[in-house]
């Protein structure tokens, strides 16, 4: 009878030991942080308007924005943020820049450094940052 009790005790101790090891390993690896992978990759859309001496094109604008970000924070942040002018209305001079949650502040900070397009003085004014393209399009008057 005593030997059976001893076996049960050993099994229980082993089981508790395994549970403790698994718990500690999970804690040391910080497995909880990986949960937010989806949020880290989330997109951000910066709604902006342009004040310029004469009208500018969307392609030129994207080139200038990318160059200013590269000048300010280098190639690494340019690749992380990867700003793109997804929509640009030439009639109202409003547009949307797509970037991500990590790099949108870098893009916002670099916008005042975009001062000229082919000798034409410009000022890019960020209006609002949103998480959905639909809302961003609504803000510039597109359905």
């Amino acid at each position, binding site marked *: 009878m005593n030997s059976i009790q001893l076996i049960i005790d050993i099994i229980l101790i082993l089981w508790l030991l395994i549970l403790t090891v698994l718990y500690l390993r999970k804690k040391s690896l910080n497995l909880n942080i990986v949960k937010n992978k989806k949020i880290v990759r989330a997109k951000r859309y910066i709604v902006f308007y342009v*004040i310029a001496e004469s009208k500018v094109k969307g392609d030129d604008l994207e080139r200038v924005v990318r160059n200013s970000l590269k000048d300010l*924070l280098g190639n690494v942040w340019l690749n992380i943020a990867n700003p793109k002018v997804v929509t640009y209305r030439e009639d109202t001079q409003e547009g949307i820049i797509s970037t991500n949650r990590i790099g949108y*502040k*870098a893009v*916002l*900070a670099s*916008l*005042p450094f975009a*001062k*000229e397009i082919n000798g034409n*003085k*410009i*000022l890019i*004014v*960020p209006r609002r940052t949103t998480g959905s393209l639909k809302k961003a399009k609504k803000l510039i008057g597109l359905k």
Partner: protein
Amino acid sequence: MVFSEDGLVGIKRVTIKAENGNQLKKMLKKPFIERDVLVFVKPLSIDALKYAIINKRVNAVILADDNMRIFKKSMLNLLRSYDKFVEVSLKSSSGLLYNAIVFAYKWIPNIIFSSYASDFNEIWSPISKISYLTVLGADEEEAYKFVILNPIKLLNELNSTNN
């Protein structure tokens, strides 16, 4: 908020460059220093900086790349005790801006960051200013304070002295 040298837009400001305390004293007596004008001083020596901090007519002291060396620990403590405003240009090097943010946390709570724009394409929007300061190491709340609240505080100070 706009503080302009010509006074055409926003509130008029005057910037004085001072080599020493006596020169600054003479400049402050000139007729163009009116009551409703903001006086900004760029001191080029420790003597001028001391006088600018102590004088009540001086609204803010300018911190730039060429006078960074005179902002020593004792001067920063003096700035803190007199609760003086310090202005930093966003055209300055990013190293200076980083140092200014560090100073702001430890010594100068009343710091303002100006664009020093001479043309429309040099103006900074508040969102870009806050993001730039955040990229340089400031907290978002503090950056908001530097960009929006401190200029209002400076304006209130001017209004309270005039009334």
